[in-house]
């Protein structure tokens, strides 16, 4: 439980919140800033002590709650995360990058130096790790909030829960429950789309199916997903190639098990066919 600084005398201090950015697009930090209706309540409930994207003022550590966005992709990041862990009582990895390595973890299957040579005029200045990894690969985290980006309401629920000292209510079941509760038509059944909703963790509120699009798994695998069975349906009934299935698995959470394992499996099948 986060108790703020209740041990000190004087008026009770608000718990201090720190928000950090690692290799990422800033989208998850924006989710926090986009909580327009709740932002005022939030700054009343917590003191924003470190949030470079939102304010210049920085208060010294320790912090009660730390939110980390982004993956660990550079040697500096791999160093820095350990200090952050020491600075924060309750550390939360937010978003696909911080919880799975994110989209940039696609380089984990390739040669990153090849990429830097292709992209940068002077690749010798680029110092980067061979892999992009989730925060939990380098230090222990107290909670992981999935999504690309995270869902603002889930972020708010997380903060409320931490302030109250209870478990955040973050469902681990499929997107389908949210989709059906909203009464959305199933794009998989009624449109033959390769929707990952049945194996993906809920939390987005069935955002994509709500726009008549297939879920692409940005919240990562649900509890006990049966990816094999869904993949079989996609390949047999929708005639999707192993390459398509591999790509479905290897997107925002491609490096997160069991998406990784299944993606690798489809790659082997693909290579076996060549």
């Amino acid at each position, binding site marked *: *439980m986060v108790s703020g600084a209740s041990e000190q005398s004087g008026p009770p201090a608000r718990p201090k919140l720190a928000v950090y950015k690692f290799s990422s697009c800033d989208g998850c930090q924006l989710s926090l800033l986009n909580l327009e209706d709740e932002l005022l309540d939030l700054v009343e409930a917590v003191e924003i002590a470190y949030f470079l994207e939102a304010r210049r003022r920085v208060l010294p550590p320790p912090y009660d709650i730390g939110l980390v966005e982004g993956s660990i992709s550079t040697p500096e990041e791999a160093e820095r995360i350990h200090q952050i862990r020491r600075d924060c009582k309750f550390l939360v990895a937010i978003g696909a990058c911080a919880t799975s390595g994110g989209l940039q973890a696609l380089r984990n299957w390739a040669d990153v130096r090849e990429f830097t040579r292709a992209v940068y005029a002077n690749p010798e200045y680029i110092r980067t790790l061979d892999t992009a990894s989730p925060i939990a690969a380098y230090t222990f985290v107290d909670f992981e909030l999935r999504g690309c980006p995270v869902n603002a309401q889930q972020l708010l629920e997380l903060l409320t829960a931490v302030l*109250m*000292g*209870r*478990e955040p209510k973050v469902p681990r079941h499929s997107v389908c429950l949210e989709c059906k509760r909203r009464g959305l038509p199933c794009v998989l059944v009624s449109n033959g789309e390769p929707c990952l909703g049945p194996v993906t963790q809920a939390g987005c509120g069935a955002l994509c199916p709500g726009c008549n699009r297939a879920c692409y798994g940005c919240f990562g695998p649900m509890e006990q997903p049966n990816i094999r069975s869904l993949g079989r349906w996609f390949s047999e009934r929708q005639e999707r190639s192993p390459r398509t299935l591999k790509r479905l698995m290897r997107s925002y959470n491609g490096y997160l098990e069991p998406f990784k394992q299944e993606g690798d499996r489809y790659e082997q099948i693909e290579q076996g066919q060549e």
Partner: protein
Amino acid sequence: MTTGTNEISGPATSSITRPEPICGMDTWMPVATRVTAIKRENLNTHTYRMEIVDEALRAQYRWAPGQFNMLYAPGVGEAAISISSDADTPDMLDHTIRVVGSVTRTIFRTQVGEILGLRGPFGVGWPIDRLDGRDVVLVGGGIGIAPLRPVIYWLLANRDRVGRVVVLYGCRTPEDRVYAEELENWAEHAPIDVLVTVDNATGGWTGPVGVVTKLLQRIRVNAERTVVMVCGPRILNRVAASEFLQLHVPPSQVYVSLERNMNCGFGRCGHCQYGHWFVCKDGPVFCFKDIADIFAIEEI
């Protein structure tokens, strides 16, 4: 379902084992209860003594041994907790709570004088209306002694109505004993047999060591006239029920209290289904003969 000659007849549940809920019958709005005392049982188990804040409601509140309440921490949720005090003083409610989740952890931070919510009492209790002239064996494991404690109080108050009374209790270490002083006191002074065993004899423990069912070797039961009540972890329920059946105690005289996920408490939310039973309203206390067909099957 079979009906042997020696079975206790009568309806499965009676008004004695199932008083109606005072709260929760028609609302998800819990009643406020005040914590009046907290007793530490062991490292992660405390007993909370509570009273319903509203005096009129407090006076109306009745419950039976084996029933449970949904205790409520506002904004967090509810947990099903059996009532462990004396049903003859229904205005004073004990709930023995072990920290296992969000709700119980929040309750653990509650101080004397603070309030919690309550809906209940729910469920069917132990068959105390069928104990006349019977020997009674109570088997508890860990915190499973909590729903049995009201039965012990009842037996002590109605000692002349029943035959031999045996309480078998097992837990991990002597320090883990719930109601340790009471157990010792009963063993010393009460007209009942109390035997406690531990898995690990830490400290100066000189008593029995081993699983609670091993204590059965130390007693002789008169199978025909014995009523058994078991409450513990799943494995204990299973082994204990099996051992008593091997001792020829009829299935109709073996009672087990089961634990399940509960949300509503009155058989509507579906969470606690156990075969066709709803543990919250058909249980938590079941007669073994009613559940023998599904007992010990995984994932029922």
